[in-house]
């Protein structure tokens, strides 16, 4: 979240789209009810299903799964054509007035630079025009046909309300109603928030769904403002924490881009990441990348990391490809992996296409599962009849189960969706031989190190030299690890403006990432978490309910990364002169000498408004990107592409260009294309989702959760049920090209057939949560149905839109 959970109460209008907050985030949803009760906020829900969120919404509009960009593009067109944008904000804080290169083009669904054989773009033309001064060329009047504003206007002019209806199936009046509600927040005194989750990410265009909404929020001037922002609702308690700590292989902790094969030389890598300002006076904060990176290497390798050896840069793996979950299982499937350590993860249930995952696991020599419970993954080799048909004699994989503590049995920090780190304390003793994940990893590491010590090996240095200065190496304490990721001064850290002034003495915990250095004098395991455990102690353990702003910021409750800032980009809450756009929603303001107020300024504290320092300090140009430059795999403007399994013959926006039917830059592995189904055999759209009674695949082990939602079911509309002769409560079989599930039919009015591109499209709902382990009724893993293809940027599988058939079983 750019903002945070409590801040939702400050919104005037709340849109839930690409998520179902009431269902999946019932506790966070309380802030929606606060906004409704105390601000008279309105709530609209756009979803393929009439969800539990819709049940308490002021307005609901249906949409076909996988058509969100068409809807959001329609909103952008509506805002631009009705002039419902926050002009001063757009002009000052976005790249709307910036000029784009002449060779950037868009032709019938394909942007310039496309290579069809590689299914990827050369993104060179997706860039600004740079003037003789080395800075981006700007047209403040926004009239130049090459400025972002004009290009954007032209791009989205095709997204008419009629086109939205044709692509999404949303009735035009419903679309216009939502667009009108959104547009009403273009004024400085009205702010809208968006709450989204996996309903946007789990598409082959997932990242662009979110980009489209970010553009809308920029146009409305709602980013950086209380009650606004773009708010991802994360999954279980610490999924934000693992993302911050590098869930993905393409980043190091703190979202530091990881080196690839192209980055053999440290200096070149650091220079590439240290983005230089593209406009005068901009902070371009990634210029500090070398400080963060060097401090990370010092944290990992301690004294072994020296200036002479490039702080052990050569020991870092340089990737030849993204190692996302789909790629990992693809390699496993090809027999290229021997072992798999599976921690806090149930891939047989959670990864798309169960058949492929099961085959992959069976090709391993060994599988280690660290989990509090038996999982489908740890049991993948067992025969559970129809739910998991396997001949154990044919599986040679050796499976080790290492019982791990559950969250209530250990101490540590959780980072919530709102970036707030909160310390938690063990509430119960773990049973039997259970160990914490930390202890398990420490045990594996110390044994591995011993082996390397005794036997040498191909490349022992990174293992033998890893800093492991915990008081008891086999059981590092969560406190020690937390202090380590916060970071400390190795030598005295002095003020660059006044070297006699010591900011942090050698050995002290650091208070802020502003004190990190690139000369090896500081160490820090994650620059974003710097300050969480400073000399003042464990700030994550704070529980002060003081709220001086009255806006629910609670600055002394836990620690919010970065720098305990509660709303990101908060400079944008004030106008260019430094006055809050809305005096009732003051966060920070320019007081004549500095930025001050109720939040930690996301701005150099002394940067006077006249200096024109942009609020989006991580960007080299200091502004929000309506045009994403080279940041996205499939184009700088989100464009609608059909899901990989589409019920339509073509993309209605590009009926004559088959290249633009599906995301032209999404990766699909050889062999998986053949596993995609077509509409003639699988005529219905399916989407998977969660239910409030359960948490992923865990709570089917919990009796009370099993009682309130005991057995698997499939949701379908009344018309489809009638056509197929299915009555409510009948058992049905849902099949995709990859597998089937059998479950009870819930025939409901909450799903409605939609007319899309002239044909009737039915959506079949497939709740996840069931499997063959646990105390709930046994069921089929929902991902037996889903395709093995992911988002072009994040590679998140397309769980939310695929094709199935349905029959009475």
């Amino acid at each position, binding site marked *: 979240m750019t903002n945070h959970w409590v801040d939702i109460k400050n919104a005037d209008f709340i849109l839930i789209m690409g998520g179902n907050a*009431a*269902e999946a985030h*019932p*506790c966070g*949803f*309380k802030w929606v*009810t606060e906004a*409704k*009760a105390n601000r*008279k906020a*309105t709530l609209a829900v756009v979803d393929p299903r*009439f969800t*539990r*969120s*819709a*049940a*308490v919404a*002021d307005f*609901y509009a249906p949409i076909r799964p996988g058509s969100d960009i068409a809807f959001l593009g329609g909103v952008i067109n509506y805002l631009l054509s009705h002039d419902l944008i926050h002009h001063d904000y757009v002009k000052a804080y976005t790249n709307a007035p910036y000029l784009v290169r002449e060779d950037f083009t868009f032709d019938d669904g394909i942007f310039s630079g496309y290579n069809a054989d590689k299914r990827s773009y050369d993104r060179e033309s997706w860039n600004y025009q740079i003037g003789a001064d080395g800075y981006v060329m700007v047209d403040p009047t926004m009239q130049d046909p090459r400025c972002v504003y004009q290009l954007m206007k032209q791009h989205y002019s095709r997204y008419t309300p009629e086109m939205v209806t044709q692509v999404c199936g949303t009735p035009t009046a419903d679309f216009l109603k939502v667009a009108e509600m959104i547009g009403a927040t273009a004024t400085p005194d009205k702010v809208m928030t968006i709450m989204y989750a996996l309903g946007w990410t789990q598409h082959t265009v997932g990242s662009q769904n979110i980009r489209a909404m970010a553009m809308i929020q920029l146009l409305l001037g709602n980013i950086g403002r209380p009650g606004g922002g773009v708010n991802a609702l994360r999954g279980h308690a610490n999924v934000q924490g693992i993302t911050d700590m590098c869930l993905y292989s393409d980043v190091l902790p703190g979202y530091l881009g990881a080196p690839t094969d192209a980055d053999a030389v440290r200096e070149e890598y650091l220079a590439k990441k240290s983005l230089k300002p593209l406009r005068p006076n901009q902070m371009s904060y990634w210029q500090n990348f070398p400080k963060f990176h060097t401090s990370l290497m010092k944290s990992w390798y301690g004294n072994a990391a020296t200036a002479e050896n490039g702080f052990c840069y050569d020991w870092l793996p340089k990737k030849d490809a993204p190692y996302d979950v789909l790629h990992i299982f693809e390699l496993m499937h090809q027999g290229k992996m021997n072992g798999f350590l599976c921690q806090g993860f149930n891939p047989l249930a959670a990864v798309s296409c169960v058949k492929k995952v099961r085959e992959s696991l069976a090709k391993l020599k060994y599988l280690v599962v660290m989990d509090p419970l038996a999982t489908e993954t740890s049991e993948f080799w067992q025969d559970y009849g129809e739910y998991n048909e396997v001949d154990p004699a044919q599986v040679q994989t050796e499976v080790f189960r290492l019982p791990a503590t559950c969250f209530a049995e250990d101490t540590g920090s959780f980072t919530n969706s709102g970036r707030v780190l909160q310390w938690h304390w063990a509430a119960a003793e773990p049973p039997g031989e259970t160990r914490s994940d930390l202890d398990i990893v420490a045990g594996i590491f110390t044994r591995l190190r011993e082996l390397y010590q005794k036997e040498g090996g191909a490349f022992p240095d990174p293992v033998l030299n890893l800093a492991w200065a915990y008081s008891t190496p086999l059981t590092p304490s969560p406190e020690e690890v937390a202090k380590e990721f916060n970071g400390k001064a190795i030598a005295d850290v002095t003020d660059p403006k006044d070297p006699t002034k010591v900011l942090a003495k050698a050995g002290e915990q650091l208070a802020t990432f502003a004190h990190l250095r690139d000369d090896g004098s500081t160490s820090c395991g994650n620059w974003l978490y710097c300050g969480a455990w400073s000399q003042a102690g464990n700030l994550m353990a704070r529980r002060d309910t003081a709220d001086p702003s009255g806006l629910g910021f609670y600055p002394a409750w836990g620690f919010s990364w970065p720098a305990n800032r509660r709303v990101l980009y908060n400079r944008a809450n004030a106008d260019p002169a430094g006055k809050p756009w809305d005096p009732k929603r003051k966060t920070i303001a320019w007081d004549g000498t500095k930025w001050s107020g109720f939040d930690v300024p996301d701005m150099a504290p002394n940067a006077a408004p006249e200096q024109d320092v942009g609020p989006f300090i991580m960007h080299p140009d200091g502004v929000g990107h309506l045009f994403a430059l080279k940041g996205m795999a499939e184009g700088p403007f989100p464009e609608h592409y059909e899901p990989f399994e589409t019920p339509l013959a073509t993309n209605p926006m590009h009926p004559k260009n088959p290249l633009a039917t599906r995301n032209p830059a999404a990766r699909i592995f050889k062999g998986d294309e053949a596993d995609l189904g077509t509409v003639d055999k699988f005529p219905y759209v399916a989407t998977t989702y969660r239910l*409030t*009674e359960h948490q992923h695949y865990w709570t089917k082990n919990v*009796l*009370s*959760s*099993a*009682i*309130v*939602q*005991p*057995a*698997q*079911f499939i949701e379908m509309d009344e018309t489809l049920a009638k056509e197929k002769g299915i009555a*409510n*409560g*009948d058992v049905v079989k849902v099949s995709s090209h990859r597998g089937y599930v059998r*479950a*009870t*039919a*819930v*025939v*409901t*009015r*909450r799903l409605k057939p939609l007319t899309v591109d002239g044909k009737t499209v039915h959506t079949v709902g497939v709740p996840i949560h069931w499997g063959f382990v646990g*105390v*709930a*009724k046994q069921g089929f893993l929902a991902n037996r149905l889903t395709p093995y293809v992911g988002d072009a940027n994040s590679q998140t599988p397309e769980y939310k839109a695929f094709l199935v058939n349905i029959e009475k079983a």
Partner: protein
Amino acid sequence: MALQSLDIKARSATTTPTPQARGAIPVAKLIDISKCIGCKACQVACMQWNDLRDEVGDNVGVYDNPADLTAQSWTVMRFSEVEVEQGRLEWLIRKDGCMHCADPGCLKACPAPGAIVQYANGIVDFHEEHCIGCGYCVTGCPFDIPRISKKDSKAYKCTLCSDRVAVGLEPACVKTCPTGAIVFGSKEDMIHHAEGRIADLKERGYANAGLYDPAGVGGTHVMYVLQHADQPQLYADLPKDPHISPLVALWKGVTKPLMSLGIGVAVLAGFFHYVTAGPKEVEEENETD
């Protein structure tokens, strides 16, 4: 705080006068259906506080699980898909359970002394140790709430967490509700709270929003805020104008006084017989046995 008083106001099949000395404030639980997301956290909290675990059932084509109230499920969510305005679907989710009537039909019907009590704060509670399993409370309830356990043939239902309320805590369902759809306090405060919610709903276009506190049972200590108070039956057949079953009225209104009269007549007859005939003399030969 008088909210906590467990003074008995009424007791089944009992004529002993109830205590009057201490004041008690009537309590109420207010369920705002317009805020309810149907998450069933209240059901789980109820299970956990009261140590109840129902069977792991099946899906029968609806979200309602368990499918009905049982001796192990004292509250269940009932989901109704309705279109009050043509083309505008509403998913009304009502937390079902004991309404804690001011005039409780269950208590009136109950023939077992002390099996059902009404506290001075309005909570109607079952004391199962006195329950004889006759099921009259089921007949007596206008809301079809009590369930007879197959295990011990006794009647069970929501206690409004009388044990928690007695020590100044809110009921478990109230404590857990993430959206504040369930609130608890004095009935007066709850009515006031409801007024604010109803005004908000009216502004949002629900012209018939209102409070469900049916007069036919003397009002209830569990109340609903309904978006469509003119049509409570939309909410999984919530009765529009609940009354105690005429069978109970017959039992209480005519039959029971008659029976009491019969008992009284018998007693009187015995007394006069004693007065006129004197104590029965014991025969001498019997004494030697």
